[in-house]
């Protein structure tokens, strides 16, 4: 599905708000500029939350999608 090189993955499936974002913020701290973080989540609020988190923190969403109730986001460390 993707040719992006993912540096780190977070499986936040089954976690309720705000845990997918909390796990993402924790994981992003360990990365450096330009590295990519992939997050999987099932929380329906995560679509708007990840957009908002990316906008607020400056770490952009470079790829996103949904399949079989699982949302996928690829974020890039600013």
């Amino acid at each position, binding site marked *: 599905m993707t040719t992006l090189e993912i540096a780190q993955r977070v499986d936040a499936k089954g976690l*309720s708000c*705000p*845990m997918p974002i*909390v796990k993402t913020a*924790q994981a992003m701290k360990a990365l450096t500029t330009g590295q990519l973080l992939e997050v999987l989540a099932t929380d329906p609020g995560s679509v708007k939350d990840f957009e908002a*988190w990316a906008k607020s923190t400056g770490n952009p969403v470079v790829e996103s999608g949904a399949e079989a109730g699982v949302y996928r986001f690829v974020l890039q460390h600013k």
Partner: protein
Amino acid sequence: MDDSISLVLFSGTDDRLQAAAVMTAGAAALGKTVHIFLQYWALDAFRADRIGLDHGLAPEAGPAGAAAVAAAAKAGQASWADTLRQAKDLGGVDIQACSLSMDVLHIEPSDLDPLVDGAEGVTAFYLNAGDSPIIFI
């Protein structure tokens, strides 16, 4: 981002503490500084020997609400204490006990869970809160 929010926690029921924990974790994930001031029943819930117990729900929950909250917990929703621990791992979260409430409830610093960073009076709280919005739960 250098902005901050401040929360005054008064109620000690699990639903209100969960709401406060969610507000805290969301803010911490955005890089905000969060000042938390624990008063009365919220402070009581942070006693090391009680933090993991059932603290009940607000009266408006009713039986159906209580069942819904219990189902969410059973489905693996993180407790408010766990949510706060993860928020503190992100950094920028400071939890202070109200020194008056400590006196009223006969609580010593050693009685409190390590989530609590210290105790302060209301003047110190306002000084640390600065111009940040203050939320009372």
